[in-house]
């Protein structure tokens, strides 16, 4: 604290911290962050290393970089893990859930945010309470009910469950987004003779695009990574999503680390690539979604 009272560059009369202290602090900060980042990323790096080694090399060198790259592990994992089928299934689960969620959730959120029919407050309370009910409270009766209705072991059955479970989050996020939109445009459209559906599709929908993107990312990530419901509701391997099939795969080839590591990279590759492409939306969306649920 040497230069007390000096006029700082930001214009206030602030005591400036010494430049040396500042740079020492920055070194400390970066050192800490590099350590923590290593903790987050190194395990992934080891996974990537092992995915291109032979099992013999993993036995001698389980953590370090490979001495030679064996890309065949990927082809072998792709085939033996039947990833062509299960990754396709996961894409279906994700796309179907997002589509249904955005259409139905968008309509509901529009009505709740912009039209507020009588009973809206009660309904928001319902979704608030429902979002705190743990899945364990209703999973057993739901399972029995789905068995009775023939929805067990069907892809659309699982999608229905996903859509329902993500409904409160979708409504909270989209509603809070739509509620801030200015009302003049809608009124103008109504004066021009637009009906409710047209007001929704032509005015509110385009203005709420970022909200829909957020919901799509949060719901899509959740479904891609979902394990428990898929394990419980889908028993036919031809309908497994990538998570449960990978689980059985690691069980079957538990000694073949090269193969399972390559499989693991295949499972996470689409998500990590999408995350790196849309970092900001992902991080902000998940942060928002985490607080809203």
């Amino acid at each position, binding site marked *: 604290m040497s230069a007390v009272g000096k006029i700082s560059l930001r214009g206030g009369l602030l005591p400036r911290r010494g430049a040396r202290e500042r740079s020492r602090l920055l070194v400390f900060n970066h050192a800490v962050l590099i350590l923590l980042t290593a903790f987050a990323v190194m395990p992934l790096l080891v996974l990537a290393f092992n995915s291109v080694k032979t099992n013999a090399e993993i036995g001698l060198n389980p953590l370090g970089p490979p001495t030679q790259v064996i890309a065949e592990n990927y082809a072998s994992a792709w085939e033996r893990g039947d990833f062509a089928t299960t990754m396709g299934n996961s894409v279906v689960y994700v796309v179907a859930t997002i589509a249904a969620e955005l259409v139905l959730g968008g309509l509901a959120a529009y009505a709740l945010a912009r039209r507020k029919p009588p009973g809206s407050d009660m309904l928001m309370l319902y979704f608030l309470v429902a979002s705190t009910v*743990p899945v364990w409270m209703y999973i057993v009766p739901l399972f029995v009910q789905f068995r009775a209705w023939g929805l067990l072991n069907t892809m659309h059955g699982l999608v229905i469950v996903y859509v329902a479970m993500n409904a409160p989050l979708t409504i909270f996020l989209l509603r809070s987004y739509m509620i801030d939109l200015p009302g003049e445009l809608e009124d103008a459209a109504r004066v021009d003779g637009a009906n409710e559906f047209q007001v929704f599709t032509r005015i509110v929908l385009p203005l709420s695009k970022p909200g829909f993107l957020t919901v799509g990312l949060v719901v899509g990530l959740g479904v891609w990574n979902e394990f428990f419901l898929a394990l419980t509701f889908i028993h036919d391997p031809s309908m497994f999503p990538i998570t449960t099939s990978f689980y059985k795969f690691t069980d079957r080839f538990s000694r073949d680390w090269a193969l399972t590591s390559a499989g693991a990279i295949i499972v996470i590759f689409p998500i990590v690539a999408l995350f790196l492409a849309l970092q900001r939306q992902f991080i902000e969306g998940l942060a928002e979604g985490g607080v809203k649920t």
Partner: protein
Amino acid sequence: MALLANKRPATFAERLSDPGWRNRCLRNVIVPWLFILPLLLIHVVVVAVPAVQGVYMSLTDWTGFREANFIGLENYRVLFFEDEAFAEGIRNNLSWMSFFLTVPFILALFCSSVLAQIKRFGMVYRSLLFIPYVLASVVTATIWRNLLSPRKGIGAALADIGIAGLDIPWLGRQETALMSIAFIDNWHFWGFLMILFLAAMQAIPPALYDAAKIDGANRWQEWRHVTLPGIRPIVLFMFMMVAIWSFLAWDYIWILTQGGPAGSSDVIATHLYRNAFLRSLSGYGAAQGVVISIFAGFIIMIFVMLRRRGWDI
């Protein structure tokens, strides 16, 4: 003014015959509710109705196929007074909770405070630290099962360079299994907490920090009197959420040990899963689901009460 003379409110039949009223009603009530109905219906069928059924089911001896007999609170009596494994499950849930209410919070508070102060590479750190959170639990489990293996994992590598004692089967020992799984789950989770705290810190008006500097606050005082109050609401809210989630914990435990060895990493949810889906003790499993929900409701109640007392949550 003929309209003013007619003060009697219109009867329902009269309103119904008024085309203007019918139109307004359609526009402001019926159409909006038609927009809401599809999602609401799906949610009621999948969540609300089964939740109520679950309470009833927990009072029966149903096995999922034959007829159910109403047995009152028998399932709960067995759970709390006879099922030793369930008692251990609750204890494990409490250990899990004490882990997750401390370790990830300390890590996330520390890391976000450090990250909030720097400008260069801030985005890079943020993204890399967040990557574990987007990974599927099955993959995270595979990564760490290998890294914690006694012969080929980190422990073995450390033993090679002279740091002995860590090359043990972390997931295969009763004393270490549960906390090893918590460590793995936390590797995946804490970055999420960090991002939430960081976002809250970045929303604090810089003027507050300037004011603190004028008052001659040092870094610690700045953190204690500006940063901490600014992020307090989200920290307390996440305290509540993490406490609730601690009673729902299932996937990492099921994937890595299925509750073993010898029940040492069993929690309520793994018991429930085994009872309801592998042993078809549906009624008994439903009772465990109700118990989990009661714990969750209890935690929410504590926070609602604190809020009533003027806590800023």
